[in-house]
């Protein structure tokens, strides 16, 4: 019953190799150009990744001093990878970060101030520049924007005014239009708000409506309390109106995640981002109209800030990293992101180079929405908590929770977190 000794040794050796393998590291060679590591979240998006790669290759070919080496992660695991790498002291030199996360990572000292000249950053849409306490830590090639998708024929048929960017719908107009579409139209719901979305979509898409009412996620003058902002009279008004949308069955409280209600005619309107435009144009062609967000009291508002690039504080080649970023901000790359991935170019110069976003382009409205209505999510390290708390509160309100009490509880939760973190440096 004995097996040869050799087999046993092999087994032991194999397991030892396995263990050693877990700890193996790759070290860049010491000679030649200096290596700059770059991480991106775009592994799941071939077009976006191809664009990043093209910039990296062009940069590497353009000079001899530095060599940028990229590593791509799937978006779902990206933030965890960065957090893990930071804990292990192994952050790359250059990385991309979702806009609302930038202040959090800046506060945690993952990121170094960007140090790009004002003349460069001023050309960018304000929502593509990531700040924490008035210092710029990140800059993005693009932004995203939401608007109301509708059909001219449907609106005309019901005698509803088609709003323009200068005269958007007021709260009364918007509400009346929804009621009319629901009652007279042959739709299951007047509007598809995208309530089936999860995670960041809720704060991204719906907190601007709260802001349009005059409320906010946190008191931005102090950044230390949500009292009065998230539970003040304006916020309560938002909550009651929001809840009534579902109680009056104007909108579906649990919409499908794939956002097809508007495309297959089950909803008359849709509150959706620019990424939905291609399908909508294909389906409705000239009948499609992209309407500005409604003015619910203090002007139309939409969420701003998408993925942005930053340099880490542990980066040893700060100069090289900065040179790479400056190289990457060339309008032709910004335009390429836009053409390939469908995002809103961050500068006017780049917009002029794109098919859809140049003056007169079919998606041009989104640039104007972004420029005029974008509100960045509160630039505070508390944002991950605020985001989660707001999402949960808004969902509870959607499902019938008492508005004022629920908002009070959300405020308490945010305030407790801010207090227990020494006000996050504010």
């Amino acid at each position, binding site marked *: *019953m004995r097996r040869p000794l050799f087999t*046993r040794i092999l087994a032991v050796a194999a397991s030892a190799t396995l263990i050693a393998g877990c700890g193996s590291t790759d070290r860049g060679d010491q000679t030649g150009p200096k290596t700059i590591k770059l991480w991106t979240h775009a592994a799941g998006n071939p077009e976006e990744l191809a664009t990043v790669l093209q910039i990296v290759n062009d940069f590497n070919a353009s000079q001899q001093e530095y060599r940028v080496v990229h590593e791509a992660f799937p978006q779902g695991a990206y933030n965890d990878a960065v957090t893990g790498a930071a804990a292990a002291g192994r952050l790359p030199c250059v990385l991309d970060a979702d806009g609302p996360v930038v202040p959090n990572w800046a506060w945690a000292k993952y990121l170094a101030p960007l140090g790009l000249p004002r003349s460069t950053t001023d050309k960018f849409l304000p929502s593509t520049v990531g700040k924490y306490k008035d210092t710029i830590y990140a800059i993005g090639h693009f932004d995203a924007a939401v608007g109301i998708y509708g059909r001219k024929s449907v609106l005309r048929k019901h005698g509803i005014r088609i709003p323009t960017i200068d005269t958007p719908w007021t709260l009364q107009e918007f509400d009346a239009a929804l009621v009319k579409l629901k009652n007279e139209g042959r739709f299951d719901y007047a509007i598809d708000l995208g309530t089936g979305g999860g995670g960041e979509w809720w704060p991204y898409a719906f907190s601007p409506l709260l802001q349009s009412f005059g409320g906010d996620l946190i008191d931005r003058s102090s950044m230390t309390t949500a009292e009065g902002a998230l539970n003040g009279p304006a916020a309560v008004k938002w909550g009651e109106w929001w809840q009534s949308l579902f109680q009056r069955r104007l909108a579906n409280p649990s919409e499908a995640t794939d956002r097809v209600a508007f495309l297959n005619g089950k909803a008359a309107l849709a509150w959706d981002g620019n990424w939905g435009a291609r399908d909508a144009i294909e389906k409705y062609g000239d009948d499609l109209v992209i309407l500005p967000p409604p003015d619910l009291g203090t002007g139309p508002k939409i969420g701003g800030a998408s993925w942005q690039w930053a340099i880490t504080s542990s980066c040893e080649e700060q100069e090289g990293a900065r040179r790479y970023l400056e190289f990457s901000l060339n309008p032709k790359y910004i335009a390429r992101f836009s053409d390939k991935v469908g995002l809103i170019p961050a500068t006017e110069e780049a917009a002029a180079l794109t098919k859809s976003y140049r003056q007169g382009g079919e998606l041009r409205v989104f640039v104007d929405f972004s420029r005029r209505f974008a509100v960045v999510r509160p630039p505070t390290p508390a944002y991950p908590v605020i985001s989660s*708390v707001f999402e*949960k509160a808004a969902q509870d309100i959607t499902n019938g929770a008492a508005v004022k009490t629920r908002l009070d*509880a959300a405020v308490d939760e945010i305030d407790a977190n801010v207090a227990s973190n020494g006000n996050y440096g504010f």
Partner: protein
Amino acid sequence: MVVTTRTRRASVAEPPERPGRRGSLRRRRDSLAALGMTAPAVVLLTLFVAVPVVLAFVLGFTNARLVSPEPARFVGTENFSRLLDVDVLELPEGAQVRDYTRRGSGHPEYEGKSVLFTVDEDTVVLAGDPTFWKSLRNTFLLALVIVPVQGGLGLLLAMLVNQRLPGIRIFRTVYFMPVVTSMVVVSILWRFMYQEQGLINSMLGTLTFGAWDAVNWLGDPGTALPAIMVMSVWQGVGFHMVIWLAGLQTIPPSLYEAALMDGATAWQRFRYVTWPGLRPTLVFVLVTITLAALGLFVQIDVMTQGGPLDATTTVVYHAVRKGFREQQIGYGAAISLVFFVLVLTVSLIQRRLTRERA
């Protein structure tokens, strides 16, 4: 396990009257090999089970955050008191709960707490973390329903497919299919089916000739948790069917023949032959379903995110939300720790009960 058995067998095979150098050398070599064989498993278990458990224990007593420039501080039992504190608040005439719970209101024992439930007009029960209590209630409700239903249904299916019929393998495969499908995929599909215009509502509508009022299964606090239960049982039942089936096939056919000879009815055959023969399987099935039901997470994360109105949140989901989404890893660890103690208690009780029976 296998290695221990083999070592023991080797030493038994060794005649005791020859305990010379050769034998002890071989034994030492054997134990070296055993060590080598177990090493990968031991290392992985240490890394991914033992270390996290110890870490959770330590982190639970700190204010550690996932992302923070400040080092974690030891905070004693603060996390646990926030998690477990429940207070009854008697409101004086005309006073609002908010006058007591708001930060800086001068009532430190109530500050930051929220209403868990209302007893009557002027008595409310406050908790530091009401969602935790709701999660706990949901988790145990899930276990309470899923364990008997999934176990029983699994046994029923196992007996159905344990017959010698042509094409029975097809049924076995069909019932087992959900098990090998990814839970995320299953959850997404069921989410579609549960929609107001989804498959289930339209099927009920057709069956009742349009008399059925479409229900938004996952959107209604009353139906969301049962909907999750049904879907979880459907997904998991095939696995336990196979386990039961394995148990059924260990029962010698001669016992059934003997029972038939004695004129036993079908029920008597089940009661006095099948059931006692399945005892060891029963323990395994009970323990695995209980653990799976208590640790329910994926369905919630994909289908409801704990909503509507906390109707489907579970303890594991809550811990992940607090620990990762909100980055309060110390607090998340405290939740896991409390949960660990609860699950341990349940398992110990289960073990005690099943052991007594056996």
